[in-house]
């Protein structure tokens, strides 16, 4: 165990720092790091190097080269830099490389050197040039800040949603600041800059001079400043070799240190972890690395090679041409366990387990000791936690073994923490592998979350590993495997050397019907790569027609889109396609398309009925649908046209159409209607009153009610109103008028085609029993009983019924016999019935 703490360096009394190797770099760099522009992404991200960036004056043959490596030095991409001179490189939170050019343009590249997009940091930069630039990370995403040749700052807090903010001018600023940095406080980005002995804070409104509390005197210039990973702390290095460390709010000094080196450091970064005991800053010079904190002594390392520092959430990564190391404060749990002569429960448990493996009874002693103090739970927890912070799988294993051993002596120790730690470490060890090259620590991993880690694996096209992790962690398919497969498919469609059929088949074989996979998204990607045929093939696998349609429309396969939309049964979707088609095709073609799709046609007709009547007419015309055309004009004759001439004309068109449709009946009826309209007009002129729009029947009735009997009859003859109907009509009208005289005359005009019962009924309805009786006698024999009953002559009705010997009539009369008055009649009927039965 002694040798285990050999690389532990104490800083002050409370904390230890250790540095261990992550990888030995295998990247065969020809240049020194100092000859390159370097950018390394946090969270074990990739490293970008731009070689020869400053030899712009030379011939094009020695153009700069942009190389991208994984953290383990595996080459990911290499490309010749053909754009303008680059001032600074930086990685965004999405692991996109932002290259800030001297002219203010920012080119965005993917992890594999694929150009994504570009944007500009403003027009004024064009003349003034960019002097310096920083890429920084906030909770919203990644931002870029630039310093221009005019000594002005411009920043964008989120390059995903580009909003440029030009910072106010620093009064009297003549030269570039000696150092500057971006501070993020309360979700706003500020810039802190040092000019000589003065410090200025720029926010979007103003520039204010600030001072550092407790700053040692004698400072004439600041050489370096560093903000911690979480933007909580700030450190400044002065020309007196003095380091001030305090809060980023500039309100409080934490500590100070005098290193007596006046040379400007190459890099200075914070090295702390969430909840760390000590806050320390790592300062790097050409050949020296120093860790300073709240202690009189510092930790010093010698740098054999040109090195580069990458601040992380819980430490600092240091890479050079040959190695990649991690420097961090030893976490509390590890310290407790591994500190020399530690009696912490975890340390004892680890010891106990080791003895147990040696089959020594000491194991029992140690265990007892822990149990006597009642600290076994704590011991197990300590071991589990410490395992998380170990880089070497062997050490992880022995700690976990100790935890597992301790667990056996505990009742009901919740297994989750142990299980999860085992899982997490497996995942971490897998991604830390040399070939993968993501040296995440446990704290970083927890901060990053598994989803983001999976995204990063996908970004590196490490699909199999990502899928295995998903399966191992049993993530829900939609979040896990399906999503990764979909990404894989999107990548697959970009492989231009494989034929459409093969790609489609390969994708379908892998994806099958995996839930949550959207074939339309993949197809969209394929279309984006210009592979329309492939996109259509892929869409065939998409089970939801609703998803197929928009892309088909985009690909100008409107007719296919229409049939898919119809298949989906979603009328809104059909409608969307229809409108698209309407704009895309000429009218004739559009109508032809509709004609072959009855469902779409009815939908469009419905719409036209309400919104575009003229189009509706054209539709019918196109189809030679004369019947519907006729109907259309009929409707127009009363809905659209006001003037009588217009209405007649519309009816005439309708009649013509009906003839064409071979619907003689409708044509005749329409012509009748035209005649009627004209006639009604004439009647209105001659007689006054309201005739237009009455039906034929009502016209005649109105005439009779107005006393124009002659005219009424003429009309009836002209329009060949059937006799029966005319009689009903006249009967009703005259009764309404209570013109009993005329009614009687009418009844005698000839034999009634409808019989005389209606006369009786209508008189009764008008409560005229007297008149009713007149007609009752004339009613034919089969209805006589009914008529007599209607006028209330029960006795005579009985006689007739008896005479008819009709059982039904007899019961009918009987049911009308009420109480005493008709008693005799009732008896008579009963007698007649009895007689009939005898016979």
């Amino acid at each position, binding site marked *: 165990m002694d040798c285990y703490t050999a690389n532990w360096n104490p800083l002050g009394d409370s904390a230890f720092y250790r540095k261990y190797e992550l990888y030995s770099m295998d990247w065969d760099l020809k240049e020194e790091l100092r000859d390159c522009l370097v950018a390394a992404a946090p969270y074990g991200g990739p490293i970008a190097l731009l070689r020869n960036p400053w030899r712009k004056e030379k011939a094009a043959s020695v153009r700069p080269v942009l190389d991208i490596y994984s953290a383990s030095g595996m080459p990911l991409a290499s490309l010749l830099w053909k754009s303008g001179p680059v001032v600074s490189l930086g990685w965004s939170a999405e692991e996109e490389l932002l290259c800030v050019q001297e002219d203010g343009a920012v080119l965005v590249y993917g992890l594999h050197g694929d150009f994504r997009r570009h944007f500009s940091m403003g027009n004024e930069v064009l003349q003034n040039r960019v002097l310096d630039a920083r890429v920084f990370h906030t909770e919203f995403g990644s931002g870029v800040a630039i310093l221009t040749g005019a000594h002005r700052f411009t920043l964008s807090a989120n390059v995903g949603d580009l909003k440029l903010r030009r910072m106010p001018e620093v009064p009297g600023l003549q030269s570039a600041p000696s150092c500057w940095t971006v501070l993020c406080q309360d979700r706003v980005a500020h810039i802190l800059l040092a000019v000589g002995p003065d410090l200025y804070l720029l926010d979007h409104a103003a520039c204010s001079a600030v001072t550092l509390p407790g700053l040692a005197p004698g400072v004439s210039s600041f050489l370096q400043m560093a903000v911690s990973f979480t933007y909580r702390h700030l450190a400044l290095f002065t020309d007196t070799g003095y380091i001030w460390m305090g809060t980023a709010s500039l309100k409080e000094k934490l500590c100070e240190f005098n290193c007596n080196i006046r040379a400007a450091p190459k890099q200075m970064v914070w090295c702390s972890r969430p909840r760390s005991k000590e806050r320390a800053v790592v300062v790097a010079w050409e050949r020296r690395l120093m860790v300073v904190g709240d202690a009189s002594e510092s930790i010093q390392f010698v740098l054999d090679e040109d090195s580069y520092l990458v601040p992380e959430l819980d430490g600092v990564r240091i890479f050079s041409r040959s190695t990649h190391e991690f420097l961090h404060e030893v976490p509390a749990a590890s310290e407790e366990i591994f500190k020399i002569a530690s009696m912490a429960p975890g340390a004892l448990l680890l010891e106990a387990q080791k003895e147990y493996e040696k089959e020594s009874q000491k194991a029992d002693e140690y265990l007892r000791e822990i149990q006597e103090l009642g600290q076994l739970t704590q011991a197990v927890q300590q071991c589990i936690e410490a395992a998380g912070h170990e880089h070497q799988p062997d050490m992880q294993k022995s700690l976990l073994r100790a935890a597992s051993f301790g667990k056996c002596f505990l009742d009901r120790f919740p297994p989750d923490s142990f299980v999860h730690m085992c899982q997490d470490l497996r995942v971490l060890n897998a991604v830390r592998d040399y070939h993968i090259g993501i040296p995440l620590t446990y704290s970083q991993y927890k901060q990053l979350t598994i989803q983001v880690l999976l995204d990063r694996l996908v970004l590196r096209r490490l699909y199999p590993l990502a899928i295995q992790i998903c399966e191992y962690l049993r993530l829900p398919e939609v979040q896990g495997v399906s999503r990764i497969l979909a990404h894989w498919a999107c990548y697959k469609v970009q492989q231009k050397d494989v034929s459409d059929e093969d790609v489609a088949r390969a994708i379908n074989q892998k994806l099958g019907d995996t839930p949550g996979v959207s074939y339309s998204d993949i197809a969209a990607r394929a279309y984006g790569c210009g592979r329309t045929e492939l996109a259509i093939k892929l869409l065939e696998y998409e089970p*939801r027609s609703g998803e197929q349609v928009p892309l088909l429309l985009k690909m100008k396969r409107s007719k296919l889109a229409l049939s898919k939309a119809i298949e989906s049964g979603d*009328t*809104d979707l059909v409608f969307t396609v229809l409108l698209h088609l309407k704009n895309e095709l000429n009218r004739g073609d559009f109508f032809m398309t509709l004609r072959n799709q009855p469902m779409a046609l*009815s939908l469009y007709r419905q*719409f036209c009925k*309400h919104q575009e009547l003229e189009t509706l007419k054209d539709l019918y015309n196109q189809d030679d649908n004369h019947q519907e055309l006729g109907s259309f004009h009929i409707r127009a004759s009363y*809905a659209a046209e006001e003037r009588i001439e217009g209405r007649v004309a519309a*009816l005439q068109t309708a009649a013509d159409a009906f003839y064409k449709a071979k619907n003689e009946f409708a044509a005749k009826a329409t012509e009748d209607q035209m005649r009627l309209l004209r006639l009604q007009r004439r009647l209105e002129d001659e007689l006054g009153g309201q005739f237009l729009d009455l039906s034929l029947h009502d016209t005649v009735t109105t005439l009779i009610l107005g006393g124009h009997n002659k005219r009424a009859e003429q009309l009836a003859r002209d329009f060949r109103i*059937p006799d029966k109907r005319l009689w009903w009509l006249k009967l009703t009208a005259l009764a309404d008028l209570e013109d009993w005289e005329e009614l009687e005359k009418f009844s005698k005009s000839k034999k009634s085609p409808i019989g005389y019962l209606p006369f009786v009924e209508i008189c009764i309805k008008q409560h005229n029993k007297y008149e009713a009786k007149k007609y009752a006698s004339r009613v034919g024999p089969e209805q006589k009983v009914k008529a007599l009953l209607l006028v209330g002559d029960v006795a005579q009705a009985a006689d007739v019924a008896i005479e008819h010997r009709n059982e039904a009539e007899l019961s009918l009369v009987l049911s009308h016999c009420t109480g005493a008055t008709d008693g005799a009649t009732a008896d008579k009927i009963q007698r007649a019935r009895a007689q009939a039965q005898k016979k």
Partner: protein
Amino acid sequence: MAFPHRLDAPELPDFSMLKRLARDQLIYLLEQLPGKKDLFIEADLMSPLDRIANVSILKQHEVDKLYKVENKPVLSSNEQLCFLVRPRIKNMRYIASLVNADKVAGRTRKYKVIFSPQKFYACEMVLEEEGIYGDVSCDEWAFSLLPLDVDLLSMELPEFFRDYFLEGDQRWINTVAQALHLLSTLYGPFPNCYGIGRCAKMAYELWRKLEEEEDGETKGRRPEIGHIFLLDRDVDFVTALCSQVVYEGLVDDTFRIKCGSVDFGPEVTSSDKSLKVLLNAEDKVFHEIRNEHFSNVFGFLSQKARNLQAQYDRRRGMDIKQMKNFVSQELKGLKQEHRLLSLHIGACESIMKKKTKQDFQELIKTEHALLEGFNIRESTSYIEEHIDRQVSPIESLRLMCLLSITENGEPKRLQMRMSYGPEHLLTFSNLRRAGLLTEQGPGDTLTAVESKVSKLVTDKAAGKITDAFSSLAKRSNFRAISKKLNLIPRVDGEYDLKVPRDMAYVFSGAYVPLSCRIIEQVLERRSWQGLDEVVRLLNCGDFAFTDMTKEDKASSESLRLILVVFLGGCTFSEISALRFLGREKGYRFIFLTTAVTNSARLMEAMSEVKA
């Protein structure tokens, strides 16, 4: 009387949840527009809304004034206007005119349009065309199922019938599928599905697709309802065309039940006021007579009146304590019952008066003759007289359609007699298109149709062929179907309407409703097996389906619950008939309909009227 349910009849699921869901969603939508607002409600939505949220609930959520959507200038001075409408183009134009008027007047207000049950792209497009798409915010109130009664859910979409069966517009089918999806998420999956009709099949397939997309939600749930049966209205027009004679149907035919309640006019209430009465299972008196043949109702009511009197009479000879008990506990119930009783007696009287006036007996006799297929000449001349007398165009149309369907076409002269005006030409054309009316032309025999089709086959236009086939499909084979399914019961002696033997009692024992018979037969067989001929005669060869899941999770209780979905509306007679069938077989039926309909509504939906 008032058939009690069998003891082993399964419990109905609690559908009041649907109301709560709809209410909560509406409140949420209203709260999306914080502050005072005026609410414009489409007339068709007023009654359904009333069943979900009353005015005081609306007021609680800062609805200031209520307006009806109608073509009148708006006097609202509120800064926020909210429109609750059906997705119709005419409503969009109304809203557009309002917003544009405000714009002209230089006024800015907030506008929110809530579409119920869903919005359509066409509506949004009209808003865009009118240039106000950016000024209004759109939302959907997915209120598609209104529980009108414990066993009756209505979508309150009467336009479904015309839109689909006449115009061929399929947009509501998706709404139906959504509604079914909602039911299956709330009440578990349906293990057994049956259906007949083109629309039924489409709705079913869409619904299945929805379920697949949201896999997992209903998985593992125990089904509460064992069977679902989807049926298109055009499978059986005949039943819907008949005059109704069970009490509830008759009340609907006479007074028009609207959204589960009816307005009884002064002639019923025997006062000078009209009264709005909710008709459902909670009305004890109504509950007992709703499914009865009308001839029994009066007797039942008078018996009930006597019982009531007897209960009132009990108070004689009570001591003080008993009297106190009586007043505090029973009197209120008795009074309530008394009130309802007098209402229904009033309604009966009113019905009798109206029906005898129009020679109801004659009418029913004619209908029965048409159904049974005898005395066709007499029936035809009755209809002719009906037309001649110009009593009611809707009634005449109805009889013509009934004649046409039962007799496979009607003599054209009847149409000629109608001549109510040019718009009737359009009505006839509509009826023909929907398959309600076919002409009995001399040359229009089957061979003629066949030659017409063969001629069209050579025509390349695919659409025309489908048109031709659908018009061919609309040939009614009622007579043959009736024989196959034994729809006309054999009469031996008097049919005792007090003790019904079969479902025919809803039509005085003369006719078993076709739709109900189909359902009965399929449920008995648990499939369409053996009904091939009937399906063929119904012209639904491709549209009859069965789908059963193998899972055996359904309890025997749930397997006796059957959801019947009527696409295009159902009548109260059909509901009564199936309730009767349920009692006979120990099932319980639940009804889901796009709207409750009857013959008059059917005809009105097909009519063209001058606007």
